[in-house]
């Protein structure tokens, strides 16, 4: 048997995550200031951790229902009313193993071979590979020309009879862009007209710095075609807990739950107890963290302006997507040289898909003193590059 025949062709063709590849280059180096992380620099609030210890102490170490603890689903349903979303915790809400599992389950549940999913890019690194693993075809919508906001008009140009879904993420990783309500309304109208699903990753919903988050699922007539994905990683600094959730119509959920029970059985029970505590008593902690990110964003924006590199001011998440084209370097070269010369890690924009080339993602979830030093080094690097 040919060696290549031993493996899945889809997986063999798939490149490793660009982030992972970049990580391998700097692993083990202690002298680097990293703006390359995509997670809060806060440790999970104490009361959440304490609740999880308590759950363990009480011997709560079993499986839960495939759906997740009903108490957690009820808390999430209550929380979502804040965004004018209404979901039945018994049939329209599923607790998953982080948002990553949620993305996979949803795509596998809706796609048939050859179905197309329009993906607004730059975007989180897993969307496209998971679409392909599910037998679909990712159709890239480059948002770089429209300030990283996917426009209904541009989406319409990509629609074909095979289009099954549109994938959006707001606030966006890696750009920090927040989709305006007016554009979501146009997209919703288009989705209804074309009868396609809208998959909306809203994991950064709590981290917005202007208007409050608005979910496309709250628009009239969208509930039956919207699939809302969210989780606890970013808002509650719970990345390692792996708790996400899917909100979708009960009919679709009957398909999704089948996959979830074969795939993951259920999310870890102690994490689920932690998540209940997060929703019940950590509102102030979330606000404190959000304000801290806002100040660091402002600091970063001001410093990058002084360096003279362009960027679109982010309204959410904790990333600044800096345009490095004035340096004449590719995003990969910029990131590599920056590590070699100044020991600062950023993520090259090309790993996030179309529209990402020419940019680097800088995460500002870091202490001000580190941001200060990192930005001083970036300024020196850019100055030297420009001087040629």
């Amino acid at each position, binding site marked *: 048997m040919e060696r290549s025949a031993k493996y899945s062709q889809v997986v063999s063709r798939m490149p490793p*995550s660009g*982030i992972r590849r*970049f*990580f391998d280059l*700097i*692993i083990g*180096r202690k002298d*680097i200031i*990293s703006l*390359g*992380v*995509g*997670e809060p*620099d806060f*440790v999970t609030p104490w009361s959440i951790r304490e609740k999880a210890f308590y759950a363990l102490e009480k011997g709560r170490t079993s499986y839960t229902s495939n759906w997740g603890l009903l108490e957690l689903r009820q808390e999430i349903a209550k929380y979502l009313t804040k965004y004018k979303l209404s979901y039945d915790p018994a049939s329209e809400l599923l607790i998953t193993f982080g948002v990553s599992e949620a993305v996979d389950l949803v795509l596998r549940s809706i796609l048939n071979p050859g179905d197309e999913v329009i993906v607004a890019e730059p975007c*989180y*690194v*897993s969307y496209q590979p998971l679409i392909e693993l599910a037998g679909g075809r990712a159709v890239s919508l480059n948002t770089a020309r429209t300030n990283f906001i996917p426009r209904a008009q541009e989406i319409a140009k990509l629609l074909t009879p095979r289009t099954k879904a549109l994938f959006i993420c707001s606030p966006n*990783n890696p750009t920090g862009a927040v989709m305006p309500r007016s554009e979501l309304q146009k997209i919703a109208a288009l989705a209804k007209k074309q009868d396609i699903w809208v998959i909306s990753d809203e994991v950064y919903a709590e981290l917005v710095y202007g208007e409050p988050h608005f979910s496309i699922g709250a628009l009239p007539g969208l509930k039956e075609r919207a699939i809302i994905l969210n989780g606890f990683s970013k808002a509650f600094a719970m990345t390692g807990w792996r708790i996400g959730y899917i909100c979708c119509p009960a009919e679709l959920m009957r398909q999704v739950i089948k996959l979830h029970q074969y795939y993951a059985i259920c999310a870890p029970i102690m994490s689920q107890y932690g998540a209940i505590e997060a929703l019940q008593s950590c509102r102030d902690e979330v606000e404190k963290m959000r304000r801290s990110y806002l*100040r*660091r964003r*402002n*600091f970063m924006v*001001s*410093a990058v302006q002084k360096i003279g590199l362009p960027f679109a001011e982010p309204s959410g998440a904790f990333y600044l997507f800096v345009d490095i084209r004035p340096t004449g370097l590719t995003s990969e070269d910029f990131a590599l040289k920056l590590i070699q010369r100044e020991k600062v*890690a950023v*993520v090259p924009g090309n790993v996030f898909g179309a529209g990402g080339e020419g940019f680097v993602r800088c995460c500002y979830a870091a202490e*001000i003193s580190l941001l*200060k030093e990192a930005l001083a080094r970036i300024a020196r690097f850019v100055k030297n590059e420009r001087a040629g």
Partner: protein
Amino acid sequence: MDEILELLQNDARLTPEEIAAMLKKDAKIVRKKIKQLEDEGIIVKYGVIVNPEKVPAKKEMVRAIIELSVTPERETGFDALAERIYKFPQVESVYLISGGYDLQVILEGKTLKEVAFFVSEKLAPLDGVRGTKTHFVLKKYKENGAVLSGKEKSSRLEVAP
């Protein structure tokens, strides 16, 4: 105003320019507001929280919390006595509190003997002091919101999704 105060309380090293960038304000305005906070006595002092366990000179120092039961004076209440006490340089803080006693005094001395001497010779004989109870501090865990031992460190990867 509160935001500036909050930032400085958390990190007194921040410059007005840095605070201005973080709050999207003019550096001149921030400088003026800091001055105003100082003039109004809202910002009393810029401090550093030291972990005494890690400073050789501090390591041997003795810290004590003294509970004082006192008789308040007519017109001045507890204030006059509190003032007499806080003027001693050995005294780090003085609080008027409710509960089983009236004044809580925190002080630092080079030796146990020195602290004991201060309590018995300086504090106890003061007019109005009815009784003292001395508690020696064995270990400091947290001070002014800062954790002194076993500080949590982020274990994030250098690059992540």
